[in-house]
């Protein structure tokens, strides 16, 4: 703790409180970015698809949560003996599952026929998907902000100098749990199959791995992670109004995280997410008064940071270096 305080003093203006709060806020934002980046990376790693519809899937997940938790009240209405928090978590879990199913359907209909086609043709398809999914979701959602009615609301916990929103604590916990589950998954049979497929599709097929199934699972996991990211990016304190038609755009803010970590690296996504989240919040906290940088400078700090990293490490921090052959 002492070390943190010392660093805080070095950081100057505003002192320890400012520093600690920026740190926690940055970690919470970073956790969201990391979750979004993870989903993106898993889809890319397993299927070589740059998924531009990731933001749309995030919005779908958040919308399902709104729908299940506030409109339908499932599964809460069958489990009234449970406390509200538990009911809400079940609704959110159901929403994540539903989004995973959406991801699988999308993969089966639009991505599977494109196996072996040029990378960017497939990327274009996901762009078309993005238009469709977002339009349909927005239509169901209406264009007003929709609150998720999560049990934590805008509540704040004070621990010494630190003031942190309950939702941010939950975000970080969920991010850690999701990463542990993924680590476990990659050791499972299916996970190994996925790693093999990522390494070499044809060789994997020759070993009797059903590549189609791997694709479906990758999209399901990717979509589920997108949904989790979408849910947490529609919560207080950052999105106090709730889910809006523009929630989907948060994925663009997570892109630098994907790149900084390396497009095909799971570890990279996590590290990149946290780094980018912190870079953004720290720039916002400490550089806001530097007027020559312009208004909204913190918004481009992630991109500048990404470019800097790429100049040093062209494949990101943990990305696989492409072996260039003649």
């Amino acid at each position, binding site marked *: 703790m002492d070390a943190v305080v010392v660093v805080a003093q070095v950081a100057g203006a505003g002192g320890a409180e400012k520093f600690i709060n920026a740190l926690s806020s940055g970690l919470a934002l970073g956790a969201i970015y990391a979750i979004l980046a993870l989903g993106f990376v898993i889809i890319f790693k397993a299927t070589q698809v740059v998924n*531009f519809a990731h933001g749309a899937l995030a919005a779908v997940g958040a919308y399902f949560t709104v729908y299940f938790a506030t409109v339908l009240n499932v599964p809460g209405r069958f489990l009234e003996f449970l406390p509200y928090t538990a009911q809400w978590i079940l609704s959110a879990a159901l929403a994540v599952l539903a989004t995973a199913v959406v991801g699988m359907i999308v993969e089966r209909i639009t991505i599977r026929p*494109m196996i072996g086609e040029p990378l960017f043709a497939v990327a274009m398809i996901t762009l078309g*998907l993005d*238009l469709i999914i977002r339009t*349909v979701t927005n239509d169901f959602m209406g264009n007003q902000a929709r609150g998720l009615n999560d049990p934590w609301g805008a509540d704040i916990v004070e621990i010494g100098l630190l003031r942190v929103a309950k939702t941010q604590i939950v975000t970080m916990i969920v991010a850690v749990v999701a990463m542990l589950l993924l680590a476990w998954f990659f050791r499972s049979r299916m996970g190994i199959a996925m790693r093999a497929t990522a390494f070499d599709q044809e060789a994997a097929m020759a070993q009797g791995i059903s590549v189609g199934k791997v694709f479906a699972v990758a999209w399901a996991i990717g979509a589920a992670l997108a949904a989790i990211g979408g849910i947490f990016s529609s919560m207080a304190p950052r999105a106090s109004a709730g889910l809006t038609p523009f929630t989907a755009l948060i994925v663009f803010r997570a892109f630098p995280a994907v790149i900084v970590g390396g497009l095909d690296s799971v570890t990279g996504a996590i590290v990149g997410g946290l780094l980018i989240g912190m870079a953004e919040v720290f720039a916002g906290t400490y550089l806001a008064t530097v007027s020559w940088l312009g*208004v909204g400078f913190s918004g*481009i700090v992630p991109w500048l940071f990404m470019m800097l990293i790429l100049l040093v490490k062209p494949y990101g921090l943990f990305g696989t270096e492409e072996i260039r052959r*003649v």
Partner: protein
Amino acid sequence: MRGRPNLFTDYESEMALFPTTTKRVAVALLLIFALLVPLGAIPGLSFLQESSWLVLINRALVFAIAALGLNLLTGVAGQVSLGHSFFMAVGAYTAVLLGGTPGKTVWGLELPIWIWLPAAGIAAAIIGIIVAPTAVRVRGLYLAFVTLGLVFIGLHLWRNFGKIAGGPTTGRPWPPLEFALWKGDPIISFAKDGPWLGVQLTSDAKTYFFLLVAVIVFTLVAKNLMRTRIGRAWAAIRDRDIAAEIMGVNEVRGKTQAFAISSFYAGIAGALFAVILGRLIPETWDLLLAVEFIAIILIGGAGTIAGTLLGTFFVVLIPRIVEDITFFFADQVANQGPLAWLGDLFIRKSPDDILGFVSTGAAGPGLSIFQLNVALFGVLIIVFLIAEPLGLYGIWIRVRNYWKGWPFTY
């Protein structure tokens, strides 16, 4: 030689711009068609001369210039760029800085078009040259994301340089499309209605002719670039960069040239885009615009000129056509026209209409017509690319080959 279109006996004829008679005739017909469009002289398509269509067609022509540039960079030289809108913005703001009218809050030098238009291209090209070395270090998708970063950094700059870009939500006016020798009255004005050679033309029609000439020039330049040393070097770098280097192709120079020329195209297109719209806000130069160009060249068919042009018209005009179709059906249903039964299938007439998922009101229930337009555009992209991943050009090749071999299937 006659009747053997694919037989070339020397390199020169193989490399010719229009190698076959069919091609020559087709291009000539296309040109005549293009000249007649704004005069409303084409039977059945005379509605194209209406300003609402001409404005769209003009936008397509401007986009065609930008898309040709991106096609050289991405399609021919293989460097995927999501930052095309950034280079367009550089061009547009150079143009307005040199050609715009100064005001209380903005700078402008009021120079004539023959200075600001080339300068727009050159400024963008210079930025392109500065960015190019990154492409040597960073490759493939990573490069795409670096260029994407340029878009966001650009947006930040335009928002904060109010002296050049104007107010953040209101922008500033661009100079009109007028040709003058120096400050003062223009010699030729494309921005005012009036007669040309005795034919009364609207400003949109005049702008159309200006842009048409520009597109033809830029198409020829692109086509020629592709069949010279530079173009072949680009293709070599795209296909296998190390192999290209071993064969003596200078990778750094090739990529720099690709970025410079592509950005030049983008700069010119950006300036013209802003000029024909008259006023733009910084948010115009966002990711969506850049993605639109990637969509254009991929839907058209990467690496081909014809495909790029086809793709441009597809992406720019299809939303309008889709819109007209949905409105047409809404109208049919409302007035019980002959095609009302088809419209009944999807247009909601009453709250308990189960079949209809499209409503004609401003906001739901069900998708509004406006939302349907957006979604249908997405559907079209997907259907087209699944049907033919090589884009419209691929479809064209397939159709052509079918008729070449007709009545045999191959």
